[in-house]
């Protein structure tokens, strides 16, 4: 019953987010600030992880290619498919649920604990619109970060594959171009946009409706990470079945 009540509260929160908008002059600066903090501020970790995961995928594939009949270009193919279909949109989103999600929950939760949200409401400000809407809009730029992740992941695979002596650069590029399905890119970005909405709203929900003090802010951050990850994993399955199945 608690889960159902939470889903209901979440739906009501989403409706409230889009009601009574804040002045555009103020909203504009809030959106820019959130793009900086949520997306631009995450690029470092995204690039770092993407590079090494791409490299590891290439090495693992190479080490498992023991049959001489299978072409070495498969390393490039496997790296591309792994990175574009799953690693960049899903794995990076789980990491973002931890990094960005816990930041969102703790910042909104602290505002709740210190009565800053009550202060907004007393002034007549739609606090949900003021706090959550800019995060949703900022996360619309998240696919750009995922595009960078895809590029860097594949680049990491190329570096590891070529400089590790597993295949030639030409083989890797040939593998990258083998059986390329453009819809896979669309599939990845559709998933990314949906995950972006989840990463912006579920942590906001846990921060906004939290009760208690500093300890509860920490607990809410953990809970929000768990639930954001669970929802991403379930949606990933459903979207894959719907779009590729």
């Amino acid at each position, binding site marked *: 019953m608690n889960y159902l009540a939470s889903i209901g509260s979440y739906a009501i929160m989403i409706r409230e987010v889009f009601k*009574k908008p*804040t*002045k555009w*002059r*103020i909203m504009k600066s809030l959106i820019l600030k959130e793009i900086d903090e949520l997306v631009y501020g995450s690029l470092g970790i995204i690039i770092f992880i993407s590079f090494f995961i791409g490299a590891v995928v290439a090495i693992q594939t190479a080490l498992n290619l023991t049959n001489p009949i299978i072409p070495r270009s498969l390393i490039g193919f496997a790296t591309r498919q792994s990175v574009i279909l799953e690693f960049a949109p899903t794995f990076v989103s789980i990491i973002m649920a931890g990094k960005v999600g816990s930041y969102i929950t703790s910042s909104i939760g*602290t505002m709740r604990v*210190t*009565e*800053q949200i*009550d*202060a907004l*409401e*007393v*002034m*007549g*400000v739609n606090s949900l619109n003021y706090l959550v809407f800019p995060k949703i809009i900022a996360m619309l730029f998240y696919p750009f970060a995922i595009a960078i992740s895809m590029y860097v992941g594949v680049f990491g695979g190329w570096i590891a594959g070529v400089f590790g002596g597993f295949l030639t650069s030409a083989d890797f590029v040939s593998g990258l171009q083998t059986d390329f399905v453009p819809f896979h890119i669309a599939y990845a970005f559709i998933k990314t946009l949906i995950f972006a909405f989840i990463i912006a709203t579920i942590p906001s929900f846990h921060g906004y409706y939290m009760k208690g003090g500093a300890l509860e802010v920490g607990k809410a951050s953990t809970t929000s990470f768990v639930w954001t990850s669970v929802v991403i994993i379930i949606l990933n399955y459903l979207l894959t079945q719907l779009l590729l199945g």
Partner: protein
Amino acid sequence: MIEVNDIHKSFGDAHILKGISTTFENGKTNLIIGQSGSGKTVFLKCLLGLFSPEKGSIVYDGKTYSSLTEKEKRALRQEMGMVFQGSALFDSMTVEGNVKFPLEMFTNQSKSEMEDRVNTVLKRVNLVDAHHKFPAEISGGMQKRVAIARAIVMNPKYLFCDEPNSGLDPKTAILIDNLIKEITEEFDITTIINTHDMNSVMQIGEKILFLKDGLKEWEGTKNEIFKTDNEAVTNFVYSSDLFKKVRQMYIEERN
């Protein structure tokens, strides 16, 4: 003027407010006192419109809150200023940003007009050199003054304060009390203060409302509180030896 008529508020099985009626007049500092759990904060949040009472009505200068449209409610809220117990300043904004915030949200004033207004109210609360400091960089007393400045920047008709003296030293607490009283009289605001501080009661309590178990147990002025025979009030107000002695002296003087 705010008229409260028989308001009731419950949370689940807990009946917090059990029918409170009273009137708060313009230009006066009205104090709500009572033990922890007596319903003071819930009562204040009902007055602010943060909680909706299940029964009864709250009338703000002839406008019954429950019968207003959402737009009218928001407009009414813009006539309210609130000083929270912990000041509730926005951490990410400077002192100037905090005070300017309501102006930016609800007016179409130019940048220079807003700056003038911010300077005026910060000067009024005796805070002139803190414009560019963040809340974490100033003392608790200064934070309270910033909160008061933010609350009055829109020229509110109603000022609500929740424990404005909590966490302050006695000298700063008196300064804050006097500041609230001066502002109330100067701008003819209806001020309602939720407090535990008996110094505030004696200093600025023009009307005092004593709540007990969600009911109005007693109301009167600071002079009447000396004379009252209400046991619950005397037990609460004169719980410290100092106030017991003050009351004893008052009674002896009167006799």
